[in-house]
């Protein structure tokens, strides 16, 4: 069954980039522009994995992470952020992975694959 990945990021270009790359990797994708929307998608679309940005207007990624886990603590969450400082924040330890944003989206894609036990596809 094709795995569904939810991307939550306030930057539209990055949403497009991640969806493009993840689709190329064989995943189904959906994207939310903020945390509230993201939570709605979690409830209604039941994604298999969430890629979550931290710095967003309104509710931030850390709070969103908690709320997601409250709803379903089995769902893998990848924190994908430009800010490396949050690694020290233990609130983020509940996430399954922490990826620092870079122009090489391959690292994110690889992480998603591993978490969803998909076969690593050579680039």
């Amino acid at each position, binding site marked *: 069954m094709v795995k569904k990945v939810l991307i939550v990021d306030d*930057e539209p*270009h*990055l949403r497009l*980039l991640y969806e*493009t*790359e993840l689709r190329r990797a064989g995943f189904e994708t959906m994207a939310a522009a903020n945390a509230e929307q993201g939570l709605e998608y979690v409830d209604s679309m039941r994604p298999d994995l969430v890629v979550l940005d931290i*710095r967003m207007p309104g509710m931030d990624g850390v709070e969103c992470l908690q709320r997601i*886990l409250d709803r379903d*603590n*089995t769902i893998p969450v990848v924190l994908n952020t*430009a*800010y*490396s*400082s949050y690694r020290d924040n*233990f*609130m983020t*330890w*509940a996430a399954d992975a922490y990826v620092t*944003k*870079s*122009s*090489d*989206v391959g690292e994110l894609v690889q992480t998603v694959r591993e978490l969803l036990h998909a076969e690593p596809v050579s680039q």
Partner: protein
Amino acid sequence: MEPDEVQLEEALWLRDAVAAGSVPLLVLEEECRIRLASAGACRMLGLPPGELRGQPLTRFLGHDLPLTADGLPERCVNGRPHELTLRPAHGGAVPVEVVCDHFLDAGGRRRSLIAIHDITHIKMIDEDRVWRLGRLSLLNQINEALYGERMTLEQILEAVLHCVTADQGLRFNRAFLLLIDEKSQRLRGEIAIGPSNSDEAARIWHDLSDQQNDLIALMTRYDRSLKQTDVAVNEIVKTMEVPVATADHILIRSMNERQAFRVVATEVDFPGVEDIRRWLGHTAFAVAPLMTRRGPLGVIVADNAISGREIGDLDLEFLQLLANESANAIENSRLYQELQQRLADLRRAAQRQKEDQKQLLRMERLSIMGETAAVVAHELRNPLVAIGGFARTLHRSLAEGDPHKQYAAIITEEVARLERIIHDLLDFIRPKKILRKLVVVDELVAETVRVYEGKMGEQKISLVLDLQAPGVRARINPGEIQQVVQNLVVNAMQAMADGGRLTVLTRLQTGGVRVEVCDEGPGVPEAAKPKLFTPFYTTKPTGSGLGLAISSQIVKGHGGALACRNAAGGGAVFTFTLPLPKPRPDGAEEADSR
């Protein structure tokens, strides 16, 4: 009897009475020559009547005796008898009052009747009185000086001792001042004034009386550095010391009873007297306590070691008075000093605080700058991700040979370069140090667990240490791994409130060292298992719920994983594995970094 006969009889009586009487009476003729003298007068003047006859009275009274034109003593001056000094034939000087009267003899010539009254006794009292008044007035002046001038404590102490020893003061030869040292609770000699021998004494007193008659000037401007004196007495005073606790010591008693004491040369057998005699090198001395409202400050010890003069009642009395006056001045000065000290401390503290604040502001500014730089760096990342990300996508979708492919490659490269710069910049702002080193796992585990052995004994928990990875080293942050082991051990102990067996084991396996902590508690319920390592999950009323979450994170950071299972026979087993360092291609083990 005939009136003439009565007159003659009475005249003879008068003559006999006077002649034999003890009242010193004289009858003088011209030029004050003594014609008749009573027995008392003879005794006073020191010559028998035969020899006195014809002597001029001025021989004995000097030329201070005012005379009339015809050479007889004036009757009186200002209605009072003459006060003169009589010098008897046998030597010495006696203060006397001389009453003169004139009469006419049978021949009509003027004669003088003199009555001389020895006023030594009265003089003494008078002198006493004068001296007392003088000293009281002096004390008043001293008081004003002590409180008026802005003197340091040392100057006050010196001034006080000057009063005790100066000629214009209490006239003791030497004075020693001892003060209580609060910290050591001892009475300690502070300062002393006085010559070490009579030659020195003579020299000093001569010098001093030449220079200044004004005691106040002496007190306030005396510059000891100019004099070579007082050295010996100050050496003596530095050796003088008595613990305040020895309550029967004369110096301590003086303070406790607020009483001045005088020790005479013959007195013995009073505690402390022998010590003081030894210090002073003299047997007689006086002690007066320095008392303030708050209690005793110390004592003044004074003696007349040079002149040997006896210490009189008045001397003692004035010493006490002076001590009383001085005590308050000394106390004030001390308090003032203390105050100055505290003020200085406060000023320093305020200064330091100001500096700390400046420092803090500086650091905050730096921190803000750092933060700003960090925020900017992070904000730059997002756009770079979009630029570089899509450049890669483009690159992938373009065919080899298409020049646009190369353009896309260039964009990708440049973005990667920018990302490296940002990464380095952030690293520079907040460098991360990973303190990992090669550590023997078994040793670390054993050390950590042993700390709890005592407590385990109390809780009736038996410990089994089954470490089977001897000498095996892993690259770890020892503090962090210790924290993990502690966490697991404490949890195990808490799970076995009624005692049981706690097992800690290590096993070598391929690529890593496995560490297990097992307890014989109730185990972990299935429902709890998924949440076990999440933050804030706890079953304990006082638990923070962070212990396992942190431990899990630490182990993850070391490349392992913390897991939990229930043992077959009951109880929980917590396991984690630490990867072993990879052998280098040349077969040698990785060396310790740094």
